[in-house]
């Protein structure tokens, strides 16, 4: 299977080509609620995750809700 190289919060990862965002989050164990994500600094709406295919070289930023005042 063809692999592509991406980074998630600065960490390099190799994933299968044609992976979409929803699949990626399951793969890295971050599919729970309270998560938001940007690809190359553009925020991808949750509703677009299943359709958004990740490309070679994409820089993914992953955010999560935490305690705060």
């Amino acid at each position, binding site marked *: 299977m063809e692999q592509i190289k991406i980074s998630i919060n600065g960490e390099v990862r190799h994933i299968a080509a044609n992976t979409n965002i929803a699949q990626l989050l399951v793969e890295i164990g971050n599919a729970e609620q309270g998560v938001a994500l940007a690809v190359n600094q553009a925020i991808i709406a949750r509703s677009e995750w299943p359709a958004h295919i990740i490309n070679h070289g994409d820089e993914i930023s992953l*955010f999560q*809700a935490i305690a705060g005042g």
Partner: protein
Amino acid sequence: MLTIGDKTFKSRLFTGTGKFPNQQSMVDALAASGSELVTMALKRVDMQNRDDDILAPLIANGMNLLPNTSGARTAKEAVFAAQLAREALQTNWVKLEIHPDPKYLLPDPIETLAAAEELAREGFIVLPYVHADPVLCKRLEQVGCAAVMPLGAPIGSNKGIRTLDFLEIIIEQANVPVVVDAGIGSPSHAALAMEMGADAVLVNTAIAVAGNPVAMSQAFAQAVAAGRQAYEAGLAGQEQQAVASSPLTAFLEGA
């Protein structure tokens, strides 16, 4: 009942979720407080060291979530943080906070106003954290903020309502709810803010780092309710001179 944007609240005590000794203590204290709106922050996921999922128990308890933009130093960063928070928490509510200086964490008024205008235009329910500046609060109201959140004292300082005279002006002039945020260190501070006519208070540190957060959250809930009731009852005015509470009859004279 307090209405902000599209929501109504029975409790006028809003709470933060930070600084609790552990997650169970936070969940228990917030449940005991009766608070219906809790703040949260957003951070970049640490791929090596995952944080606990604090969201599930809050949602299970029926809390409304108010994500903040803490960490943003400019309007641009705050707008980005708000957009991320909207995706993460599926809410268009945002506590807009922009404090570039880590020592005093005082909010930047110029960046805050710019971000508030942009976020309101994008359909966010914006609650900006600001200094107790009456002019700025009116400007924020004019650009579409759903409420204003002036500070009593610096974040986490527990110093109380140090901005009293300016909060009074803000409360007098506001056409949106005024939520006194930051610096409230004890239930009496919260009661004072409510007696002055604040619509709500936001408390985090004073509950989270108390010896017993659950008991302290209940104390705050009572203080907020008492302060509100006193405000609605109409406080008696102050006098420079004594005004007798008992009839000054002269029955002892001549004894």
